[in-house]
């Protein structure tokens, strides 16, 4: 939870007050937070804590519940993997009795297992399987009604794969990378170039970073002065 996760630079002062103050419990503010969520969806921004504040209001005020908002929050949280955002959202989704007040049937109960499965695939780095399932006919509803609205969703999923690859590889075959990113040929070349990575002879080099540099070390103990204060103080009292 780097500090940009705790408070993203794109968060406005109004939202900050809602996230950090007591006003987050005021049901009449739910609209502001929901608008902010749709803003995130359009602008490729992400603010987990603000979205959790919406779920909190839904938790306390079941009549505010809007399944489309919940699904959008979960879709945004998917692409934060391997951070636990998706799980944090699920933790706030209390069991609810079937809501008869909705005009249409609630889409969440049918989509929730799917979203959980997608999250599981991402967390387990099973990227080729993710793409296969995501593009299957069964998920047409999710794609056509939800992820299509979420600008840059597929690129955000690719970033999840990129994070995993960056940490684990120094070089990776282009075929393998292509299967992780669901890109091929010139698309892949363009993507790799945009990242500033080099591709030679069908092998992509990953720039050095703190996670893919390994070194065998022996950790030696360091004695801090504070550990010795008692011993030294005693010497002074002699």
């Amino acid at each position, binding site marked *: 939870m780097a500090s940009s996760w705790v408070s993203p630079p794109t968060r406005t002062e109004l939202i900050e007050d809602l996230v950090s103050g007591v006003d987050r*419990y005021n049901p009449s503010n739910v609209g502001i937070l929901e608008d902010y969520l749709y803003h995130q969806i359009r602008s490729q921004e992400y603010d987990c804590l603000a979205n959790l504040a919406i779920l909190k209001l839904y938790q306390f005020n079941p009549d505010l519940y809007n399944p489309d908002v919940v699904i959008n929050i979960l879709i945004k949280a998917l692409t934060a993997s391997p951070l636990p955002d998706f799980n944090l959202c699920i933790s706030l989704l209390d069991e609810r009795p079937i809501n008869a007040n909705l005009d249409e049937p609630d889409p969440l109960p049918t989509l929730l297992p799917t979203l959980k499965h997608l999250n599981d695939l991402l967390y387990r780095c099973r990227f080729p399987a993710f793409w296969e399932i995501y593009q299957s006919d069964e998920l047409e509803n999710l794609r056509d009604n939800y992820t299509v609205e979420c600008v840059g969703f597929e690129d955000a999923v690719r970033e999840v794969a990129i994070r995993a690859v960056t940490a684990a590889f120094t070089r990776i075959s282009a075929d393998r990378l292509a299967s992780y990113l669901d890109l091929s040929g010139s698309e892949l070349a363009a993507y790799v170039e945009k990242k500033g990575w080099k591709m030679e002879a069908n092998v992509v080099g990953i720039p050095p970073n703190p996670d893919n540099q390994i070194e065998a070390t022996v950790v030696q103990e360091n004695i801090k002065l504070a550990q010795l204060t008692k011993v030294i103080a005693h010497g002074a009292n002699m």
Partner: protein
Amino acid sequence: MAQPRAAVWAAEDDMDEDLQDMSLGNYGQYDDTFFQQPQIDEATLMAMQQHIAQQAAFAQIPDVVKGFIVHFHQAVLENNLPEITVAYESGWNKYTEKFYARTEWPEAEIIAPLVNDDPIFLILYRELYYRHVYSRLQPNIDDRFHSYENSCELFNYLLNSEGPVQLELPEQWLWDIIDEFIYQFQVFCTWRSKVKSKTDDELSMLADGGPVWSSYSVLNVLYSLIQKSKINEYINAHQAGKTPEEIAEIVGEYGSRPLYRHLGYFSIVGLLRVHVLLGDFTLALKVMENVELNQKSPYTRVTACTVATYYYVGFCYIMLRRYTDAIRTFVSILNWIMRMRQYHTRSYQYDQISKTADRMYALFAICNALSPSRLDDNIANISKERYGEQFAKMARGQEDAIPAFKELFLYACPKFINANAPPYEDPAALNALLAPASPDPSSPDLESGGADPAHRHLGLLLADVVAQTPVPTLRSFLKLYTSLGARKLAGFLDADEEEMVQQLMVMKQASRSVTHVPGGRGLLDGQTASTSDLNFVIDENMVHIAESTMGRRYAGWFIKNTERTQKLYDDLKSQPLPPAPKAGAGAGAGALGVPADAKAARTGPPKVAWGGVKVA
């Protein structure tokens, strides 16, 4: 510790006689008046019968208990903290054991004449009365509603009187008030969520229950106490090193009073707990952002509060997948409990604290299986002693790991609650809920499985666990090599090469975690760090491995033994010289330069109150 108690209750016998006379006198007198009335309407009759019943109940109270209540009331009136502490921590428990182990204490209305109908004392008395019902007996629905009303009256009095109230109560009691308030909220929610076992009366009361024990009302109390006491401003000013005068200025008339300041602090911890119970782990840590978690905090004096704080913070870190932070949190509190233990084994809270400690050893085992660390061998060994079998299964990561994780998690997790009641106000919806909705008879029962929030959180942890199951095996192979072809490794594992590469990425991911850094702002803040001693990287189809090893540690051993020797040396020096040359002894001791009282101050027992009665 026993001494002050004896001093207070030494006068027991005299007092008993006085009280006996008084009650006998009253009783006779009232009887006379009642029967001389010639004509009585029904309402009066009822009132009189009630009165007589109350008198009878009053007469049944043992005289020592009456004396105790009178004394207790007096101590509260005088804001005499040492006396209140004695009455609260030993008197109450003593008479509970003796007279009320299996029944309620007398109702507040019955004992009211003893305390001149003092409304404040009666609220405090009811607070104890209901706490006793909850802990020793089975509260019925009236108890549940009335204890809520009484808590509201208490908080109303504290928050909505004109200006701060003059009452003073011991820190331990203030903590117990907040702690009990949340506990009762939690058991109410759990009880409320079980629709099947309700009687018609209960159903109709729940339907009209309104805000009784609603999440909003509980949060409202805690936030109000935090705001009124300005405790966050106090903590910040304190950390900024402001002078007492400046702090008093900042926190105002409420925050300057210990009662409000303590309640404010305990409410922060209370919020932490409520948010965890409701499954909001980020918000739980966020409310703690001003609190510095270390054992130098003045609030470590209330041991139960400190233990609860670390337990809930550690649990949040688990749900945030920050296992290293969770381990660090548990290690520091478990070590502290171990150090404190020698002073507290006889305390009435000891049971509760060692139960929580035991749950933390279980959570520690979970974390250590998911993110092996060598932070503290001592705690790790105790944890393995207690949960060795489960730990072995969890750490191996094979199929039987899942039941072991499940067992320990359900044993050690907080008692989660649902924020909302089943639809008691809507009989149709309630019936729909009760009807055997699921056509599949093998699906889990509503009362035990599906609707239970603990299982929802368990499911999330288990999904992570399943994702990590290949890691221990991979690790054991990687440890044997410095480099190894991916195909060869897949062959060892009898796995598909591509699948194994994906597992390696999971392993890498699991060896990185957001971790709290010293000086970081708040408990949520942190930076990504490596949590494993085994590091690897994949170069196309070749896995390269590097292992970090710890050099042996000597410093701790030498420092500990140097300090021990120094202490031994000091002790020897401060021993009186042999008695033989009588005149020289005093001068000799003085010449050694270790004043006897300075020594005593250093080795005296640490100042902590966890049940220990502290009388100045």
